């Protein structure tokens, strides 16, 4: 397709910047009438930003948006709804304590108000008609928290379809990772509904699951680093092609400073022996050595997230044994982990990594204040010297050590978190998506630091957004699927495993 007049909605050279990140660069896409368009890319590729611009949450810095060929501005989420754009969220937006009907018409009850009172009978009748559109046969008076996850997804879709009633034009429905928590059978149901609704609406389908994108979409846009790098009809594509386009560059050895990847030491600093944690993961065994980077690969739900949380003291294991420096340990709280020299760089550094409203120096010393305390008082001179030393050693760019962490860029914030753990003498670091939200330059700096620190004997457990990063940085890689380790491989410099060889153990 792609003749402009047929497009339900188009973006023309849209750009968006955030502090430190160029999130979208000249993105132009067309969504045809009645078309299902897939949108794929790694985390940080710009998919979510694009979705948020289309649904009115963000405004683009430059570029144009055309709806049915006419240039327009999407002022807000409500404005997007008026223009026929609806969104089915990845984290579901339904309120569990309200009924299906109340959820579907949340904020739009006015149409049912008679003399100041809501005509509930009319509202539920209308809600039932919406549920019919997606062929879900449940009582709209049920509370949504009584529904299965899949049924709730359908209710979200039904809610998005209410836009038909009060927007004149064609509908565009944005599906953001709608299948990530659905079972196979439920996905089939969702897909058949989407296909059946193609006469009423266009869909944008964002997903990590490439096979599903191929199955459902007519056409696919591939995004990378804020740009659309490919557009192709699904008829001409296969998973391998999409994956290659998504990952983009062929591995450059020096991007991850592979020549600096030194052999690790013989000393075991952490050992997991048939470790299990509830239903999240089972029988996980590995040894981590001083100076080693151990990457854990796996999709969402593989158990690797919980495993990383266990090592950092957030979710204690329920069976098996964990030995830190040879001594058995149960890490019931992060304090237990910190005491044993384990630090965690969390995925959301602004929540668990830093106290944003404290100064750089207070954040750096937070995990090791005891060492600065004499006779119960914090030695502020010593604290200042320490903080200054870390700022210069890690090249943290900050106006002063008294600056609030709030005003630092993402990369420098991440370095403050790193300084905190190094200052606390951590010998093991759990890196949970350490480069999320960082731009390329900041990433490289983090990689370089990681190399330097492991050279000095620091051991690292790494879970990363991208397989490329996991393979590029690690000495050894564990692959997990459904809570178990399915594959182990070395990743020596110059002899890194190929992504495709690991993916087959992941899915």
């Amino acid at each position, binding site marked *: 397709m792609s003749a402009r007049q047929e497009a339900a909605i188009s973006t023309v050279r849209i750009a968006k910047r955030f502090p430190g990140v160029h999130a979208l660069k000249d993105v132009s896409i067309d969504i045809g009438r009645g078309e299902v368009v897939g949108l794929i890319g790694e985390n940080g590729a710009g998919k979510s930003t694009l979705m948020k611009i289309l649904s009115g949450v963000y405004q683009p810095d430059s570029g144009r948006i055309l709806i049915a060929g006419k240039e327009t501005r999407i002022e807000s989420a409500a404005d997007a709804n008026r223009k026929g754009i609806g969104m089915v969220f990845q984290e579901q937006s339904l309120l569990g304590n309200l009924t299906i009907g109340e959820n579907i018409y949340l904020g739009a009850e006015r149409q049912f108000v008679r003399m100041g009172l809501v005509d509930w009978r009319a509202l539920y009748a209308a809600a039932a008609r919406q549920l019919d559109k997606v062929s879900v046969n449940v009582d709209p008076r049920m509370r949504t928290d009584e529904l299965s996850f899949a049924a709730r997804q359908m209710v979200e879709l039904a809610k998005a379809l209410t836009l038909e009633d009060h927007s004149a034009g064609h509908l565009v429905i944005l599906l953001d990772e709608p299948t990530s928590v659905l079972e196979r059978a439920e996905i089939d149901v969702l897909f058949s509904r989407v296909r059946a609704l193609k006469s009423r609406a266009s869909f944008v389908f964002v997903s990590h699951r490439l096979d599903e994108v191929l199955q459902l979409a007519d056409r696919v846009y591939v995004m990378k680093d804020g740009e659309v790098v490919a557009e192709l009809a699904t008829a001409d594509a296969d998973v391998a092609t999409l994956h290659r386009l998504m990952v983009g560059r062929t591995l450059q050895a020096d991007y991850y400073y592979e020549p600096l990847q030194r052999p690790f030491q013989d000393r075991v600093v952490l050992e997991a022996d048939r470790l299990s944690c509830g239903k999240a993961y089972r029988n996980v065994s590995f040894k981590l050595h001083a100076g080693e980077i151990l990457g854990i690969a796996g999709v969402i739900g593989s158990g690797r997230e919980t495993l990383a949380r266990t090592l950092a003291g*957030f979710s204690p294991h329920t069976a098996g044994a964990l030995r830190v420096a040879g001594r058995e340990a149960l890490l019931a709280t992060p304090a237990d982990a910190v005491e044993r020299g384990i630090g965690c760089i969390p995925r959301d550094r602004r929540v668990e990594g830093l*106290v944003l409203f404290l100064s750089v120096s207070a954040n750096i010393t*937070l995990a090791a204040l005891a060492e600065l305390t004499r006779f119960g008082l914090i030695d502020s001179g010593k604290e200042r010297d320490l903080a200054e030393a870390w700022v210069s050693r890690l090249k943290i760019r900050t106006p002063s050590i008294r600056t609030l962490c709030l005003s630092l860029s993402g990369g420098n914030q991440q370095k403050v978190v790193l300084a905190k753990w190094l200052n606390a003498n951590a010998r093991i670091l759990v890196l949970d998506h350490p480069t999320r939200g960082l731009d390329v330059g900041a990433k490289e700096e983090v990689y370089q630091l990681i190399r330097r620190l492991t050279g000095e004997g620091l051991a690292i457990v790494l879970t990363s957004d991208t397989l490329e990063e996991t393979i590029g940085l690690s000495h050894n890689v564990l692959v997990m699927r459904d809570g178990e380790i399915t594959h182990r491989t070395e990743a020596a410099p110059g002899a890194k495993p190929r992504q495709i060889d690991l993916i087959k153990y992941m899915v």
Partner: protein
Amino acid sequence: MKTEDLRKWLPLGTLVVLVLVVGIVQPSFLQPATLLGLAGDTAVLFVLATGVTFVIMLGGIDLSIQSMASLASVVVALTVARLGYGAALLAIAIGALAGLASGIVHVRLKIPSFIATLAMGGILFSAALVISKERSITLDESGRAYQSWITGQSFGWPNVVIVGLIVLAIAHILQAHTRFGRYSAAIGAGEPAAYASGVKVGKQKIFAFALSAGFAAFAGVILAGRLASGSPTLAAELLLPSIAAVVVGGTAITGGVGSIWRTLVGALIISVVRIGMTFLGVNIFAQNIVFGAVLIGAVAITIDRTKIPIVK
């Protein structure tokens, strides 16, 4: 950055302006004796507000302080004949224990602090009513003799002002120079990050509640000494001015940002406003209208609400 600086110095500026305004209307107000009297009258409010500052800093609230202070005054009045100076220590110990209980309820049972301390306040108020047999108990001659460390003078200064300054020094050191103070600020500003850094969040919180109620009991002891009596309603009407003092001083009600100095400035502002109203002939029972309005005004000014989409 400029508005940040403005916010920081606004309370002190307000205090200076208020003192000057009252001084112009009533020149005798600026005499040293009057100012020392003002400082002495502020002591009880300052000690109460200081205790609750510790809790507010880490993001909680303590609504039991006025009941705690009243109970402490009753304990002093009932036991001073037998225990002498020990009566004050007993009252403070009861305070610390009550605070410990509030803290444990809040932390271990995960009950919001305003509920835990609202309930604790009810318990303490009733306890005071029961043990005092619903009466105000006046200290007799011998009991009053044990209060000279509050009511007397040393080196030409009222003892109560000196006591207040000692409380200021201790509380300031606790808040600004110890791990407890730093952890409190970290918890108030970003509890998940503090927890992830190995801070024992529960322990710090429980300690803060014990401090708050202990300081409240101490305020009750001072009040009993100054009024030479104990009563289950002696410190009633002091909760609102105390919290107003903390917030007017510039400590964020949401936690993380604040200091004992700010609370001192806030308590002095409340005192000067109170005296100013007396000069202006405002009905004494109408004063809480003003304090309520001042509290709302201060929170409205100190919180940058553009960054907070939802307030609960």
